């Protein structure tokens, strides 16, 4: 399989992750497009012993973080500082699903990335650490916080305080 074919074969996975990460179909595909462009430019630098998929996810991560740094309309409070009252609400599955995208958006990016790479993309913890260039211990602590936080948000209680900065 040629390099182009190998990369093209990963496009559906990249689109799924980008959709879950950004929460918007158009923004997700823009991110995928930028990722593919960068991957083809940097193809020579890809170390063959590295798995292609984590490498592509790491390119996407860097592009996404760069883009957010350039324009950050939303500033998140430190998730751990937020007051949370846990209330278990009986929810239908459909409602849970509808809320899932919104709930994901309420997670800090660094927690959302780890949660999605592990839970949705099923990367190993070591692959997640390489993809995000963070120590394995940080993967575990972010995963634990993300899961706890998502549970609280889905339970209908916790809504982080968002500060919208007008540009």
């Amino acid at each position, binding site marked *: 399989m040629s390099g182009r074919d190998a990369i093209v074969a990963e496009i559906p996975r990249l689109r799924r992750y980008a959709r879950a990460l950004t929460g918007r179909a158009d923004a997700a595909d823009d991110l995928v497009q930028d990722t593919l*462009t960068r991957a083809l430019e940097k*193809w020579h630098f890809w170390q063959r012993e590295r798995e292609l998929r984590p490498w592509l996810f790491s390119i996407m991560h860097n592009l996404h973080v760069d883009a957010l740094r350039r324009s950050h309309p939303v500033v998140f409070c430190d998730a751990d500082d937020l007051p949370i009252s846990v209330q278990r609400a009986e929810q239908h599955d459909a409602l849970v699903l509808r809320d*899932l995208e919104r709930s994901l958006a309420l997670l800090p990016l660094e927690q959302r990335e780890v*949660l999605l790479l592990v839970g949705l993309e099923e990367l190993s913890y070591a692959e997640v650490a390489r993809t995000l260039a963070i120590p394995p211990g940080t993967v575990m602590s972010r995963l634990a916080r993300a899961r706890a936080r998502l549970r609280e948000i889905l339970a209908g209680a916790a809504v982080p305080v968002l500060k919208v900065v007008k540009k």
Partner: protein
Amino acid sequence: MNTPISEDDLHAHADGQLAPERQTQVEAWLAVHPEQRAQVDAWREQAAALHRQFDAVLDEPVPARLLPPPAADHWFDARKAAAVAWLMLGGVTGFFLRGETVQELQQPLAAMSSLPRQAAIAHAVFVPEVRHPVEVGADQEAHLVAWLSKRLGSELKPPQLEAAGYKLMGGRLLPGDSKKGVAQFMYENAARDRLTLYVQPDAPTADGTGFRYAREDGIDVFYWVDGRFGYALSGSTGRDDMLRLATLVYRQHDK
């Protein structure tokens, strides 16, 4: 003696990332710790919900804009290597087949058929170049024309394709069958499609005039002989479009 079960173990258990032996230990521990068991189940349910929500994306057709063009691929590496090998082979053969032998061995038709191949290789090598697509840019067109005309031993002018939306980017000199070398002009339109015109001096007289067409590794090449030059126009915008452009080039040289 079992090491105590940590929260990391529970996550790894939920994600199926434990070694089998440890997996068994954690299973046994969870059997007597229902609260943690419920937590692990809740984590697994989160992952399942993520799949239910987003897996549909996997089955969506990939938008055309996301598919990279074939030329941008790393097959370009192979092409580049092939081009170098080809040029070296040409040089070596040329060295051994100097003099009259060359005339005897090189039938016009064979030489003619190598024109589109060499043009396509040169096209594949230089078209993906971002920083150095050309040796001399169109901003120095007078110099470009004088230089290439001198090297090819005959007055040479790059055709104007602006009517078709293509601007001259510049040109370069390439090694060819003769000492004179071969000229390559490159053009680009607003959509960043690139064309190259490969101009070979002292082209053998082919039987009959008119265009010939070849498709080399996804590159459409129209080639013809006009006067002393052999021309090959290479591009990837489709056969019909390339024929239209080749006609435009031909007419300018035919005047």
